[in-house]
């Protein structure tokens, strides 16, 4: 199993046809599932309860996904605890439960490798001057290994002269930004940050200050979700348009990913679609019976990644909905399935009398 994972990780992320990928994946995921089944007791109980037979071969469609919320409720590990080198946490607001993801060195290095290979496809292999729309504080405390810090560190491998656009108090450090942009004028630069923070603490502040930046050659990569921006009715195209107006950035790539599958992110291509790579896939599932949707049909997003072996996060059921737009035939030329996100599933109105006094 590990051999086939290593060999696919050595290949370029957007060149394998889905036919070939499916064949390789069937083998990898059968084995990955059995690995987690044998090594993670909670995972085993779930599969046993669902009547999954590990001896039979299964297509990926038949392997039960783990609902993403479970990583907040349980510490799910598929290796001996002594092998765990890093624990990653999702960034939850205070009072919320956070996901805990346990990494051994193999899983951690696969994450780094997958992220590097995917990113190179969009910004090139050369390191670029990098502007991070965040504060340095997030990465200072290595004990507090948050998803935010992990994202910054992961992408920083592609940058040099890494400059943080926000100070300790999360205010715009306009001097640092201007010095950075003067210094690297007319060079390709990498800009990275989280969608909501870019909008709230970078874009809006620049507007307030009435500042324009000349980051015309900048490539912006951002992720973290649209939940808060959707509430402000800011969509991807509004986001792009406004950023271009204020700082001249023309190349913007959103990515979809979660701390439970760090590394194998789904990057937005020039045509505006999110792409699965050779290291990952998505399936949309109908909520009525979890059967797999047709192309163009909206369903719950299941995320598939070859990376996790130290925790059972290789097939995850998210709480987002989306649709597959096509497979292998995106106008950007990349192979793999490409898709759109429709957003987070709506909270149901709770009926009943187990209430809160509000």
């Amino acid at each position, binding site marked *: 199993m590990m051999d086939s994972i290593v060999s696919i990780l050595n290949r370029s992320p957007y060149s394998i046809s889905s036919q070939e990928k499916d064949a390789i994946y069937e083998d990898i995921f059968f084995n990955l599932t059995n690995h987690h089944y044998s090594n993670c007791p*909670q995972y085993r109980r779930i599969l046993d*309860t*669902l009547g999954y037979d590990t001896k039979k071969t299964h297509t990926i469609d038949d392997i039960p996904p783990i*609902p993403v*919320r479970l990583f907040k409720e*349980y510490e799910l590990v598929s290796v001996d605890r002594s092998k765990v080198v890093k624990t990653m946490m999702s960034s939850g607001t205070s009072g919320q439960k956070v996901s805990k993801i346990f990494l051994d060195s193999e899983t951690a290095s696969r994450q780094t490798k997958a992220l590097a290979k995917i990113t190179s496809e969009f910004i090139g292999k050369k390191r670029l001057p990098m502007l991070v729309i965040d504060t340095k504080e997030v990465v200072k405390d290595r004990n507090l290994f948050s998803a935010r810090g992990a994202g910054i560190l992961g992408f920083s491998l592609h940058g040099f002269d890494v400059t943080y656009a926000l100070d300790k108090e999360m205010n715009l450090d306009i001097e640092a930004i201007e010095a950075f942009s003067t210094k690297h004028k007319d060079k390709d630069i990498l800009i990275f940050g989280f969608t909501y923070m870019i909008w709230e603490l970078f874009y809006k502040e620049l507007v307030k200050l009435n500042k324009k930046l000349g980051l015309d050659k900048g490539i912006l990569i951002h992720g973290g979700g649209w939940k808060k921006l959707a509430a402000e009715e800011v969509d991807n195209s509004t986001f792009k348009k406004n950023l271009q107006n204020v700082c001249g950035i023309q190349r913007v790539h959103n990515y979809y990913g979660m701390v439970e599958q760090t590394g194998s992110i789904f990057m937005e291509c020039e045509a505006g679609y999110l792409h699965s790579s050779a290291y990952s896939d998505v399936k949309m599932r109908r*909520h009525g019976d979890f059967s797999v949707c047709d192309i163009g049909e909206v369903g719950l997003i299941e995320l598939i990644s070859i990376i996790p072996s130290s925790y059972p996060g290789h097939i995850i059921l998210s709480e987002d909905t989306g649709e597959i737009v096509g497979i292998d035939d995106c106008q950007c030329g990349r192979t793999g399935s490409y898709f759109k996100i429709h957003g987070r599933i709506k909270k149901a109105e709770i*009926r009943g009398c*187990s*209430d809160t006094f509000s």
Partner: protein
Amino acid sequence: MIPFHDDNNIEVLIGTQPDLIKPLMPFDDQCCDFLADLSSILNVLPESKTYPEIMAFAFWCRKANITKIKSIYTDLDSRIGLGIVFHIAPSNVPINFAYSLVFGLLSGNANVVRVPFRLFPQVDVICSAINKVLANKKYQDIRNMISVIRYEYNDTITEDLSSNCDARVIWGGDDTIRKIRSFPIPVRGTDISFADRYSFCVIDSESIADLDQIKLIQLAEGFYNDTYLMDQNACSSPHLVVWAGHHKTETKKKFWDAVNDIVTKKYDLEAINSVDKYTLLCQNAIALEEISSLDRYKNYLYRQTIKELPANIDTFRGKCGYFFEYDANDINEISHIVNKKYQTLTYYGVDKQLLVDFVLKNRLLGIDRIVPIGKALDIGLIWDGIDVIRSLSRVVDVH
């Protein structure tokens, strides 16, 4: 305290602050007539068609039903209401405040009812109907006995209202009740709390085997109404089905297939329901060691059979159509699970006297209600083991 109308934090939906309190005898004629008129008005409102729970409430307070309930009481001649009852309705059940108000009225009291802060159209529909009925001069006494108010969570208001009532009725989760109890009521005051409860169901498998198609569908509809109608969140909705009798495998399938048919036709399963249910299933797979098998009717109905009933089974709740099942040889073998949390036992095909004996002979601390399948959500003047009319009135002891 500050009068309602001068307090900007309080929105008054009905009435004024009760000042001169004059209680009535339980089931006073004026009160019963008022409910009958309210029932007629609600019945013909177009909005009632949109909200089946308003229809159900109207049906409940119709004249015939109130007369029938009244006839059960034989000792009301020397009873009179306590005075003012302060009601705190649950925040997520729009209609509940109306029943609570009727409880207070029928026992002869003036009432201050706090409805959920969250806006529910059902609340406004009922309040405007009540206002319409109260406009009739003959209900002058009743008018002075009803105030319905809405305010955002506010300790001062709750404290004030608590200190000025003769009885307080609290509906809600355990934390809510604890919180509200921290505000004292007068020394002679009565507190009635309707807290979080757990309910289950007993079915005799042989009676299912004998059922014809029509009766089977009726039974399945009753079960659907007990559970799916409130996404299984109501205190009286069962989470556990205990099977008695023989030939269980086939008859169980017969029953659940019929339930599933109705669910597929009627239930609006949302994506969040599926995800919640599936997540719960995975959590239970980890946490509940006694699971022996799972039957899934897609994501519409989950049945999880458990081979032994752990004493804490009441902490495992289903939602939106998720049931635990247990095969029993004798009902008495499950007495160990029953604790104070247990409220309603719904049944089919089992002699109800047997179930009463189950509670009494085993000297159980829980189970306050034993009703046929289909009646789980029917609210009554005896609720959670409390005789509301007698608890909210006093006796004039005459010799």
